[in-house]
């Protein structure tokens, strides 16, 4: 029997299964938790890569869960797009997991098994969202991923508790709204299978039920992807979440919600359905444009580096929303490329911030002065990630902007072109603010300098006694090997993605969206 069509089970099923096993084994043997979780993610990553290879070599295929044929049964659809996004999610998660082991075990307290179990649950949910071809199944995976994310945010301490609770309330509203929308679609079409729903919606003139359903679905997913003005939960959640968590959820979590949004355009609603009586495409476009500017401006005003990166995420997600709103194949492909690019770039930036927290314990940008030469690899990766975010060629960020601008020109949307291009200037404002501090300013003397920064007492800024009187930044050492190596790999990935972007666009994304 050809084992390859069983691949989707490994992508989704392996993390789901081990999310239960890991906590149990983690009780018995502490260190098994990390290793098992890592192995599971590796399995999912390999399965994703093999799926992608299979899709490219042959054609998209689908997997019928439990052997029940669609449209009644649940179908997992592996096409270019879903396989690609799976590869991105699993490989970024793998690197982040390796890199964050040190502080994950500190932050998770005495139960690393539970922590890694939640991480695997999150991953199962995310990959499930990506591969599923069933509207209701998507809801279930969305909630699985969200539940895991709420819990992971919650363990970050006092402030994180409140942020996590708010995240839960708002996220659940989002999920519930999505479900409501699915209900309308179901009653309008009588099916939950995406492909069949599309065919049915295409055949009949659009009913009011289907239109209302579409609105609810987009409101729900908009909340999950933190589209302005539904973004309020995100900055708190990202700022207060444990370092090991925000490095993981920031690159992948909201990106997957954006992917689900895109999937709606691609597979559920027929072309033109969303730009007629219910102008959801235009709404996404306008909210996206506002979000790009708002996110960047807000980011420039932040002094906490994690909060700054959180607002930056809002801006970047809005960029993806603009691509979805434009709706042309090139725009959708550019949005998907940005999903990958941004996952790599944001993981780099958050990991660098986390690594600084590990060594120095400070997070306010103005307290990081003089850190560049002390942590050359970490900050070098941060600089490369920043350059990629700004979009200087040949890094990844440039090419998403390049294709998006082309799509904008193609559609005659000049405002989009202008905003997309000038957003790099806004991005430069807040990222160079950090780079300037890190590389071009001298370290500040202790202790008054970081009075407004809650120094993480557990940070291990060089306990060498002869340095005890020096500024805390000057005592910092480079992060340990297992922390900086994944970081450097991710930073390199932002450049490599830029160089090979044409291949991805040409063979994976453009065929996937058309």
């Amino acid at each position, binding site marked *: 029997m050809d084992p390859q069509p069983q691949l989707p089970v490994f992508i989704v099923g392996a993390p789901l299964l081990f999310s239960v096993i890991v906590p149990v084994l983690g009780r018995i043997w502490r260190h098994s938790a990390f290793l098992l979780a890592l192995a599971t993610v590796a399995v999912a990553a390999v399965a994703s890569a093999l799926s992608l290879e299979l899709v490219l070599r042959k054609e998209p295929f689908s997997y019928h869960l439990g052997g029940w044929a669609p449209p009644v049964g649940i179908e997992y659809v592996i096409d270019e797009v879903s396989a690609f996004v799976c590869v991105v999610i699993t490989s970024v998660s793998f690197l982040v997991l390796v890199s964050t082991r040190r502080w994950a075990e500190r932050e998770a307290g005495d139960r690393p098994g539970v922590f890694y179990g939640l991480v695997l649950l999150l991953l199962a949910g995310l990959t499930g969202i990506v591969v599923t071809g069933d509207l*209701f199944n998507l*809801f*279930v995976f969305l*909630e699985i991923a969200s*539940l895991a994310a*709420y*819990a992971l945010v*919650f363990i970050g301490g*006092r*402030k994180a*508790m*409140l942020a*996590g*609770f708010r995240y*839960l*309330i708002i996220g*659940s*509203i989002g*999920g*519930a709204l999505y*479900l*409501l929308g699915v*209900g309308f679609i*179901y*009653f309008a079409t009588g099916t*939950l299978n995406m492909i069949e729903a599309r065919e049915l919606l295409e055949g009949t003139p659009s009913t009011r039920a289907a239109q209302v359903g579409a609105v609810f679905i987009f409101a729900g997913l908009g909340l999950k992807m933190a589209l302005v003005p539904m973004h309020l939960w995100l900055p708190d959640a990202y700022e207060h979440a444990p370092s090991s968590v925000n490095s993981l959820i920031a690159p992948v979590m909201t990106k997957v919600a954006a992917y689900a949004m895109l999937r709606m355009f691609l597979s559920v609603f027929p072309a033109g359905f969303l730009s007629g009586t219910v102008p959801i495409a235009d709404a996404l476009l306008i909210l996206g444009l506002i979000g790009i500017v708002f996110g960047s401006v807000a980011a420039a005003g932040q002094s906490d580096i994690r909060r700054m990166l959180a607002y930056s995420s809002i801006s970047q997600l809005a960029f993806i929303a603009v691509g979805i709103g434009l709706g042309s194949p090139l725009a959708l492909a550019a949005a998907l490329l940005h999903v990958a690019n941004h996952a790599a770039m944001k993981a780099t930036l958050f990991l660098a911030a986390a690594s600084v927290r590990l060594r120095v314990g400070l997070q306010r940008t103005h307290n990081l002065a003089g850190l560049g030469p002390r942590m050359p690899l970490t900050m070098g990766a941060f600089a490369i990630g920043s350059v990629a975010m700004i979009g200087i060629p040949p890094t990844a960020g440039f090419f998403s902007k390049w294709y998006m601008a082309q799509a904008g020109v193609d559609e005659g949307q000049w405002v989009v072109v202008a905003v997309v291009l000038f957003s790099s200037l806004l991005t430069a404002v807040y990222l160079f603010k950090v780079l300037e501090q890190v590389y071009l300013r001298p370290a500040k003397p202790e202790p008054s300098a970081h009075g407004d920064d809650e120094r993480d007492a557990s940070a291990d800024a060089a306990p060498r006694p002869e340095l005890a009187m020096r500024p805390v930044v000057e005592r910092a050492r480079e992060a340990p090997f297992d922390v900086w190596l994944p970081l450097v790999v991710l930073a390199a990935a932002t450049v490599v993605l830029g160089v090979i972007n044409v291949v991805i666009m040409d063979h994976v994304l453009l065929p996937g969206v058309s």
Partner: protein
Amino acid sequence: MIEEISARFPYWAIAVLLVVGLYGMMGKRSLVKQVIGLSIFQSAIILFFISGSLLEGATIPILYSVHGEGHANPDDFVNPLPHVLMLTAIVVGVAIIGVALSFLVSIYREFGTLDERELLDDVRE
């Protein structure tokens, strides 16, 4: 207007429930009440699915005997799928409420209150 409402009263009831739930989540200071609001919100959606699949005069889709009596008329049976879906949705909802309540326990242990304003003041200090 009244006819319109009475003809589709389940939907109006659901709409009212949704608004009540939203108000609970957004307007209430007590975190417990917010969780109750969330629960109401989810229940409203479950009711929506169930009432949407209602078919007057139809019965449960269990076929006792169709031997030699021709094909069963689909109009005689209620669509079972939404009910099945809602079983799953209830499980999801219970999981969310469970997690939310466990959050509340932790928050109460840490802060000694579940009043949102007091919590925010506490955190800001």
